């Protein structure tokens, strides 16, 4: 009986069809994060990955032996080829964001992203790794089924209806699990050391000159506040790893997580990390709530437009 209900819950969780709007919105956020990452890297494409890069390809291969998904091992090692690789990568990321040939472009973006990480593992952060793993599952997701050029083409050809057809969300679930694991692993790693448990960790982080970004008010750097901050970060990471699956707590945790990441984005110089992680929050939002939010935005936009044009609103328009 228990096994049967567990099996039913498992199948419902991974395969009960739902609207593809969360994964489509994630595709847009994900593609934007990849484009921003490439844009930030742009002045140093050749310094990190070129023929005369900081680390040569043979050194990297010696340090990380074995078969790797790395296109740099197959393309000619000239600066022109490596530059072209990046332009193709960027072009593909743009096409993925707008949802044109979505599956093909998600595969290209995943291949290129994996390649640049394998080419130089010494400059990557957790956000890059998350993008890579999420990118793999995005290949199998119906990411182009909504808010995309692919859907517009489908409508134009008469293959798509008025609203996107529900799809199996298993790939979306895998990305959600990956995000929860990221938080839980981070929590486990932190409780191993005394600094987080004693509440002194943030003292060290906020006194690392190389990591500082915008000024933080002095009262927030008081030892008591830093202790509260350290313990709150632990509690939040645990909650986002485990309690995020409790439906009643989900939106509160997502709001706290959003505040947490925005405060880190303001105070610490860790480019793109917060946005890479936040991009996946949309996957935890109920598709019905996305539809409600979208309708609300459209109504507001319509009311504003009508007022601007001086047109009286029809009685049936709320």
């Amino acid at each position, binding site marked *: 009986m228990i096994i049967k209900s567990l099996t039913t819950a498992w199948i419902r969780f991974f395969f009960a069809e739902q609207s593809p709007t969360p994964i489509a919105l994630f595709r847009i956020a994900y593609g934007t994060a990849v484009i921003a990452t490439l844009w*930030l*890297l742009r*002045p*140093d494409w050749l310094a*990190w990955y070129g023929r*005369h*890069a*900081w*680390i*040569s390809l043979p*050194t990297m291969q*010696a*340090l990380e032996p074995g078969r790797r998904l790395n296109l740099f091992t197959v393309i000619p090692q000239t600066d022109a080829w490596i530059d072209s690789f990046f332009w193709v990568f960027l072009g593909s990321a743009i096409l993925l964001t707008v949802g044109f040939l979505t599956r093909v472009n998600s595969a290209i973006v995943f291949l290129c992203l994996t390649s640049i990480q394998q080419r130089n593992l*010494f*400059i*990557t*952060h957790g956000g890059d790794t998350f993008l890579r793993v999420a990118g793999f599952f995005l290949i199998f997701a119906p990411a182009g089924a909504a808010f995309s050029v692919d859907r517009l083409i489908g409508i134009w050809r008469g293959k798509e209806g008025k609203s996107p057809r529900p799809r199996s969300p298993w790939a979306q679930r895998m990305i959600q699990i990956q995000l929860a694991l990221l938080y839980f692993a981070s929590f486990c790693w932190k409780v191993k050391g005394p600094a987080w448990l004693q509440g*002194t960790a943030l*003292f*060290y982080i906020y*006194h*690392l*000159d*190389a*990591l500082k*970004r*915008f000024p933080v008010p002095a009262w927030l750097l*008081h*030892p008591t506040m*830093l202790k509260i901050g350290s313990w709150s970060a632990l509690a939040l990471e645990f909650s986002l790893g485990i309690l995020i699956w409790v439906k009643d707590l989900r939106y509160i945790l997502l709001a706290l997580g959003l505040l947490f990441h925005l405060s880190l984005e303001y105070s610490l*110089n*860790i*480019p793109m990390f917060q946005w890479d992680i936040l991009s996946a929050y949309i996957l935890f939002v109920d598709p019905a709530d996305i539809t409600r939010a979208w309708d609300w935005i459209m109504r507001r936009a319509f009311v504003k437009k009508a007022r601007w044009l001086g047109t009286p609103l029809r009685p049936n328009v709320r």
Partner: protein
Amino acid sequence: MEQLSVRDRYFKERYRKFAENLQNDKNDPLWPDVARYIARANSTAATQAKTIILVQESSAITPGAQGSYRPEPWDQHVLYGYGVKPEDLR
């Protein structure tokens, strides 16, 4: 990093990450490549780098009384020395 503008820091943060990884002894196979890159970047046809020395600079972060903080003096430690060969500059 500390000397860069907020904007440049955002673009160049990967250099901080890279330097952090370089200081880990288990990554010492990277040092010759890094020395060669610095030699190439600092050589011209007229003046060529002969020796590259990687120096690690560090300053301990120590909480003072009542959680106060005063920067400690900086220490220097030679990480690696490399004699530049002519073929490194090609």
